[in-house]
């Protein structure tokens, strides 16, 4: 069935100089030059509104607008719902989407406000006083021990040291490009934080960034071998992902080419679909075994992170993980991004990270085991304010991926699964990949993190807090606006005005 396209390409012909940049830049082949009429034409049905042409058009001749040709308004059957039904009636297929859930579900970060000091204690000026953002992730001992001479025995379970409580979340080589990985790896090294390989293995060129790398082990075990495990500073077991709880990773065959297939250790062009469960983990005691086999394989040198999607029973699940020997739990909320996920799952499964984080932190404290593990919060952390709110709710650090992609140029067109990312990120086509220059990509990531660190410091200073440790779990610094009693209870915060 043919629809009027979702977007319209509006070209101001009096500005257009026929340079054909848009034609060359668009991997979706929207634009072409008509020799006869000497005009630029477009097939808007292929447009995903990635804004590449708009950005690069030298004369600002282009804009992409939402088409106003819609089916008859219906609050129940939206335009999109109806078109999805047509599409499925045509193909019999599962709908695929990418990036995070775009639907207007509550964003609790936006309903939480942060405190500042007035009169009774002083705000601290981050420009004039030291303001500390360093955190250590890992298991903390219940009891200190002393050496024979009475000095402290300073041996600790392995810890990750972060210059600021933000890291780049898992995005596999394959789902994103070589240059995107290079940008992330270099930025993480320069910043003193970590990036995460995702489940596609680690390209041999990036072993040198191992000190700032978290290597992931997912249910497909793609690219997992001993050298890989030993290459990083921590190992993450991916049990689930916020964008698609309950199913495994999915790399479309079009992206499994060249080095990607080599790094993943799979044949070229084959869809890399990870199993939904780890087939050696059907229960919590099995998880314990995997945690310890990974530790054993790496001489107990590396902390093990267990990443789970935020689902209904997340507090109990986290409590189980905290007792499994894992050093760190990463919780991924339902708005988290993805390179490809079934639309229905992305849009309907899982719970908001804010509620999941608050519930987990509380449960672990109620059980007295919060010190057994650190908590990483991910799944749509969009700004320094979100980071501060997450830390105050109880997170030790945050994972960001969508924001990192945006820094590298992503325009959130949500078509990563097509493999034709015009910004050189979610693609393996060499002509597209080279559009992302790792020098620039890494610099932009560093800039973003520098900016966030300054903002975090300013927010902390305002609260009269000069070290991030004193913010962690400090829920008194948060107030809710427009939230129900129940929501406030779960978040463990008071309403504004209280």
């Amino acid at each position: 069935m043919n629809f009027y396209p979702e977007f319209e390409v509006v070209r101001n012909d009096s500005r257009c100089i026929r340079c054909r940049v848009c034609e060359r830049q668009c991997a979706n082949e929207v634009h072409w030059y008509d020799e006869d009429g000497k005009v630029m034409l477009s097939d808007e049905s292929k447009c995903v509104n990635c804004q590449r042409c708009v950005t690069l058009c030298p004369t600002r001749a282009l804009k992409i607008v939402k088409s106003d040709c819609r089916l008859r308004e219906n609050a129940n059957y939206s335009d999109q719902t109806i078109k999805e039904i047509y599409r499925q009636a045509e193909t019999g297929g599962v709908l695929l989407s990418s990036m995070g859930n775009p639907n207007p579900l509550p964003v609790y970060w936006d309903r939480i406000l942060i405190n500042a000091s007035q009169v009774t204690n002083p705000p601290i000026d981050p420009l004039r006083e030291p303001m500390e953002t360093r955190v250590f992730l890992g298991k903390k001992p219940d009891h200190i021990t002393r050496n024979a001479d009475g000095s402290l025995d300073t041996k600790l379970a392995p810890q990750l040291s972060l210059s600021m409580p933000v890291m780049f979340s898992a995005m596999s080589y394959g789902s994103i490009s070589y240059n995107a990985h290079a940008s992330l790896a270099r930025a993480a090294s320069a910043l003193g934080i970590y990036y995460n390989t995702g489940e596609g293995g680690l390209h041999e060129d990036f072993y040198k960034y191992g000190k700032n790398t978290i290597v992931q082990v997912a249910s497909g075990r793609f690219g997992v071998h001993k050298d890989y495990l030993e290459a990083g500073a921590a190992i993450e077991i991916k049990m689930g992902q916020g964008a698609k709880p309950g199913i495994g990773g999915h790399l479309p065959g079009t992206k499994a080419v060249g080095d990607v297939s080599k790094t993943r250790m799979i044949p070229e062009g084959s869809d890399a679909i990870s199993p939904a469960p780890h087939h050696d983990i059907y229960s919590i005691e099995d998880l314990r075994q995997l945690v310890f086999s990974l530790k054993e394989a790496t001489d107990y040198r590396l902390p093990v992170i267990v990443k789970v999607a935020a689902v209904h029973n997340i507090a109990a699940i986290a409590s189980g993980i905290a007792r499994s020997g894992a050093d760190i739990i990463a919780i991924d909320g339902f708005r988290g991004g993805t390179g490809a996920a079934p639309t229905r799952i992305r849009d309907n499964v899982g719970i908001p990270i804010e509620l999941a984080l608050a519930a987990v932190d509380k449960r672990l404290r109620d059980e007295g085991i919060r010190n057994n593990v650190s908590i990483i919060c991910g799944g749509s952390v969009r700004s320094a304010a979100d980071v501060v709110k997450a830390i105050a709710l109880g997170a030790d650090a945050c994972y960001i991926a969508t924001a990192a992609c945006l820094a590298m140029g992503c325009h959130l067109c949500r078509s990563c699964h097509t493999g034709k990312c015009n910004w050189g990120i979610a693609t393996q086509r060499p002509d597209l990949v080279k559009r992302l220059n790792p020098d620039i990509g890494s610099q932009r990531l560093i800039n973003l993190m520098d900016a966030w660190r300054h903002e975090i410091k300013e927010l902390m200073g305002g609260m009269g807090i000069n070290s991030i440790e004193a913010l962690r779990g400090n829920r008194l610094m948060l107030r809710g606006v427009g939230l129900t009693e129940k929501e406030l209870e779960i978040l463990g915060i008071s309403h504004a005005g209280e």
Partner: protein
Amino acid sequence: MIPLEGHVRIPSGCAVSAMISRDGKRMNGESIIQSMIPMHDRSNGLGGGFAAYGIYPEYKDFYALHIFFNNRSAQAECMALLKEYFEIVQDEHIKVRKMPQITDEPIIRRVFVSPMQSVLRHLQIDEKELVVRVVNRINAEPVGSYVFSCGKNMGAFKAVGFPEDVGRYYRLEEYEAYCWTAHGRYPTNTPGWWGGAHPFCLLDYSIVHNGEISSYDANRRFIEMYGYKCTLQTDTEVITYIADYLLRRQGLSLDEMASVIAAPFWSTIEGKSEADKEKYTYLRTVFPSLLVTGPFSIILGFDGGLMALNDRLKLRSMVVGEQNDMVYIASEEAAIRVMAPDIQNIWSPAGGEPVIVRVKEGAF
């Protein structure tokens, strides 16, 4: 309705003062009361109190519980509970001097107790832990009893009022202590409640504190994992629990504790010797949630000494004076000059640098 102490968090400014004899000489409470007078304006009449060490030599083997009761029935209930765990050695009124400045007094008792060995064996805990648990239980339950001091050979005296009046009210000139600490409170809003005055005590630890800590909820939520209940929602309470947790339960030294709650900045740690770097990094890594930020100056009293500590930015004033075997500490120099008029040696310790004073071994 104005919320009660413990229902809301109430910021307050304050005055603190302390004196200690390193020789273990015992001094009556006159001087410490006087020291609070020049700092009158740092309090607002909504709380004052004192802690005194070495005051019960003849009962030094017993825990001295100082308790407020709202009424007779609360008292009966509380005493019945105590008898389940302790032998009651002595149960008496704390003598007071009636005065117009101090009103609405509860029943104030002093009970010397000794833990029952059978109970300790049964619960498999040591006697200090038993005292802590029973006191926490009494204080957490809203039955109208409040144990405000429970150490050996020491005691706290506190009330709603200005500190100098509170000192007179409790007739502190009749007690002899080798170490005194004092506190005047300036809560921003609260109906006066006697239990809310400071010092805040647990076992032989007493804390007087001036400041408003910004790390409060991070500290509270951490320490509550270990069986403490912050019912008063005051900084002093949570700092006392932190001190108990780090000193008694983790076995840290006072210095080590100071480097947890007023941890040196990472930039400072970088410049230390390898051994120190390792130590400070370890402490900050293991106890990050016990870092206390925001302005504070605290004086921690304990059996045989005291420790004074400022927040690491020194956002609250605190001065120390030394003369012969005596050490004086106060929010303002004027207070020290009242206790020791011709004192020469007065200085202001740096933020985060603990001042630890111990009484000579065997002298108390």
